[in-house]
């Protein structure tokens, strides 16, 4: 039984990583084919440095991801505090249902509905082009917000309400109490909300596709590329991103483990 379960897990992991392995392998292919592997080379990594459209798209992606993650983390954390302070259960569940809409809806529906909104108001304002940087950013913040709220809110709920009362009791103003007593105890929730927002934004294709206009992010460029022929430089870039994210993830895990120790050492 033990052996069987280990083999099963291994097979699934093989299934999950086979395409990724293929991608990494062909990024080192000396020929331009993603079909036949000839020789090992770093050509496509060099090529990448000159692929301005892809590098531009990468820049766009990072700008959008950073901005949308920061904004949605701030707004979403404040929202969690406010939503939990709501007295009436009905109001609370109404707000939560609205929050859940982008989570539950298919991306394509969210994308189309936002696109319609932007186009409608773009027309009203007489804009020549209604889709672009601002609309992608708004769309990303919108779909990031529920994730931030859902990772902050449980932490906030877990936080002993007497923690902020204790701070008030010891002379903090309500605002001080929030920053000195509540915020530190929900910081892990805020952090993971931010990370989730950042990575979701980095990876989003469908919603960006409908709302980006000419402000193309990396997934859009890759999509356009796969419509024609894919050259291994796309694989090379993906491999780099893969490694970067992998390192970030490892770092995140160790930071999470060590943060408590550090906290104690800092004082």
């Amino acid at each position, binding site marked *: 039984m033990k052996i069987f379960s280990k083999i099963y897990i291994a097979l699934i992991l093989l299934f999950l990583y086979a*395409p990724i392995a293929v991608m990494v392998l062909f990024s080192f292919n000396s020929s331009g084919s993603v079909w036949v592997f000839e020789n090992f080379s770093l050509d496509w990594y060099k090529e990448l440095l000159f692929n301005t459209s892809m590098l531009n798209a990468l820049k766009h992606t990072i700008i959008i991801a950073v901005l949308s993650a920061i904004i949605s983390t701030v707004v979403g954390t*404040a929202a969690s*505090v406010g*939503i939990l302070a709501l007295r009436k259960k009905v109001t609370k569940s109404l707000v939560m249902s609205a*929050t859940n809409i982008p989570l539950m809806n298919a991306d*394509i*529906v969210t994308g189309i509905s936002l696109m*319609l909104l932007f186009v409608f108001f773009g027309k009203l304002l007489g804009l020549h082009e209604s889709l672009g940087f601002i609309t992608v950013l708004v769309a990303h913040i919108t779909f990031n917000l529920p994730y931030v709220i859902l990772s902050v809110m449980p932490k906030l709920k877990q936080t002993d309400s007497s923690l902020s009362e204790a701070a008030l009791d010891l002379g903090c103003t*309500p605002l001080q109490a929030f920053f000195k007593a509540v915020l530190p105890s929900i910081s892990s929730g805020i952090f993971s909300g931010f990370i989730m927002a950042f990575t979701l934004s980095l990876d989003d294709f469908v919603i960006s596709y409908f709302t980006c206009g000419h402000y193309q992010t990396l997934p859009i460029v890759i999509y356009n590329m796969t419509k024609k022929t894919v050259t291994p430089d796309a694989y090379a870039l993906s491999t780099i991103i893969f490694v970067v994210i992998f390192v970030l993830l490892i770092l995140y895990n160790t930071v999470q483990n060590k943060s408590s120790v550090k906290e104690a050492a800092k004082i």
Partner: protein
Amino acid sequence: MNKKRFGSRLVAAPYYVWAAIFIIVPLFMMIYYTFTDVNGVFTLANIMQLGRFKKAFGLSILYALISTIITFIIAYPLAYFMTKIKISSQRLILLLVVFPMWMNFLIRTYSWITILANTGIINTFLGKLGLGPLQLINTPGAVILGMVYDFLPYMVLPIYTVLSKIDKSMLEAADDLGCNSLQKLRRVIFPLSLPGVASGITMVFVPSVSTFYITQKLGGNKTMFVGDAIEYLFNLGPDFYNVASAISLVLMVLILLCMAVMNRFSEGDEEGVII
């Protein structure tokens, strides 16, 4: 007390404004576009046209159902086996299962072409054995494989979360009351994991039913799915937004219905299924 609460309620105001404009209003925009023509005049023409997409809807639902079921069959044992190993290995494997989600899914999907194509890795290998080539790419099987592959983590995660939270004393109680392992699985573990299963099913079904990339790349664009239809109409330009909107609206209603059914299983478990 009241003042204090008012203060903390107020900080959510920016979010309420945001949610109203960018979550609620877009839904009404979809309804507006569905029931008007290009000039903004009321019409039912868009709804009437939906008949032409009957087949797309049918195919999408069918494929999504099949891939959801297969995903479940693969994911449940995986999640279950994961809870049986050392805690430290559990974390590692969870990380490995989730990790592909951080990879660009277009590239991951595209890589399958390299594997499945007529001149791809599998067929090259078969050729060396003197077999094949098999038609793997551009088949219904390839589309379903793509869906299962892309959305598997969404199924594993909630099921694993629920399974790992099951109180160990509950299992001991089952042993104590004379359950063998199979009975324990059927009578205790599975019923307790239903909320996770329900959210796993929705988390896989929703993107499967609405996908347009997987179907184009691995299905060879031979047939049109709902997602393809929406994308196609969107690319035709503003004149076709109204019909695209009508299809999206129907798709949303369909998803909401599916959700409503699934919610009956996962009531009271609003959080914890998302990492």
